[in-house]
């Protein structure tokens, strides 16, 4: 299937509709509670699905290997991002550290869209990748903070809040919780809830990506802090991180779907969990920089270019 075909999936077309509507300054908008509800739903659904697949396939040593690699990526990728942001865009330590934390972490929606597209192309990633994603969400925050501040610079009162934000973040808890429920349920007991969590999945993902398109484009239009260098890095970083992810996937001998998912986890940048934690730990870093880069540049790039690209590439170099 040509790369172009991937763009014709309903999910991506709704994303494009959102982008165009916001670019034309239409007043189309998705109510905030719907967006929040859809994101809860999507996390519960992929958590469950992952758990059930692992319940069927059984635990494999690969699960542990890939988890370890994922955690290492989340800790490590911010180092590269930090260096590039300092050298090429001239960001100060604080803002470079804040942005780096985002690129070490992952975008859940990018992962979900990737999995959806891969599955329709006959390359469903392994179920445990959901757990790997959850594990990759927060280590990057630690690295980003250390880079920005050196050690020990979080105010004492804030520290416990930050630890909670990092380890008990709602999305981490929901993903791992639903994953565990899926493991416990197994395929049979999952049947009664399959109509909601399986049959409804792609359709609801369309509505969510419509919103993401609107939000990303509005952000792009309104961002003042986004220089050309930063925008360029918003494309370079996913490519660099994705390449690193791909090399590791080859080293680990992952199948095409699972490897492609790892690549997109590495390539994607957080715009939910990390911004909230960064706001808490580095309130003086500029959200105009880190949100615009991850949400308005890297996210659309990954959806519109990254996913079609890896869908073409993965079967050639992996598996």
């Amino acid at each position, binding site marked *: 299937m040509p790369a172009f075909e991937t763009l014709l999936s309903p999910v991506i077309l709704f994303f494009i509709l959102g982008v165009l509507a916001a670019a034309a300054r239409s007043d189309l908008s998705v*109510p*905030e509670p719907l967006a929040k509800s859809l994101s809860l739903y999507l996390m519960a659904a992929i958590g469950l699905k992952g758990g059930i697949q692992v319940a069927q396939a059984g635990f494999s040593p690969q699960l542990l290997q890939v988890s370890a690699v994922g955690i290492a990526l989340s800790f490590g990728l911010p180092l590269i991002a930090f260096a590039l942001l300092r050298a090429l865009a001239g960001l100060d330590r604080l803002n470079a550290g804040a942005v780096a934390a985002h690129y070490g972490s992952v975008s859940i929606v990018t992962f979900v869209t990737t999995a959806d597209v891969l599955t329709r192309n006959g390359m469903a990633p392994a179920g445990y990748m959901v757990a790997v994603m959850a594990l990759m969400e927060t280590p990057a925050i630690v690295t980003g903070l250390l880079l920005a501040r050196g050690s020990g610079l979080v105010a004492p009162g804030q520290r416990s809040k930050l630890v909670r934000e990092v380890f008990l973040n709602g999305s981490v808890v929901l993903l791992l919780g639903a994953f565990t429920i899926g493991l416990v349920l197994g395929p049979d007991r999952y049947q009664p809830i399959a109509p909601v969590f399986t049959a409804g999945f792609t359709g609801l993902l369309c509505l969510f990506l419509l919103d993401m398109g609107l939000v990303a484009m509005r*952000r792009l239009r*309104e961002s003042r802090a986004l220089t050309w260098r930063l925008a360029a890095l918003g494309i370079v970083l996913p490519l660099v991180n994705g390449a690193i992810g791909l090399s590791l996937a080859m080293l680990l001998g992952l199948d095409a779907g699972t490897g492609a998912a790892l690549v997109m986890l590495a390539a994607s940048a957080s715009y939910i969990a990390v911004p909230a934690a960064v*706001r808490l730990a580095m*309130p003086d870093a500029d*959200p105009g920089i880190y*949100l615009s880069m991850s*949400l308005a540049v890297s996210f659309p790039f990954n959806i519109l270019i990254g996913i079609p690209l890896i869908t073409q590439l993965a079967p050639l170099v992996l598996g």
Partner: protein
Amino acid sequence: MIATYTRKRIDILVDAPLCEWVVEQAAAAGILHHSVLPVQSGLGRGGPWRDDDGYASVAKRMFVALTNADRVDALLDRLAPDIERCGLVIAIQDVQVVRGERF
């Protein structure tokens, strides 16, 4: 006529993730009771934001407390070093309250 007393109302516009911290600072300054109002959109030095932009912007809250002048001063002293860094927008007014002993 029911008696009224002059007290202070302090309103603090604050980023949602930092709201809990303002609440703690207020409590430490003796302002235990408060309310938090939602804010829908705004424009500041950091550009425009709206709460239905989800992840695209940092939502704000409005912390409101009725209290007395001493506690307001105590709270301002606690917040002072961070007001600029955290972008707090603070307004203080005189108000008349009933049940003055509560505030």
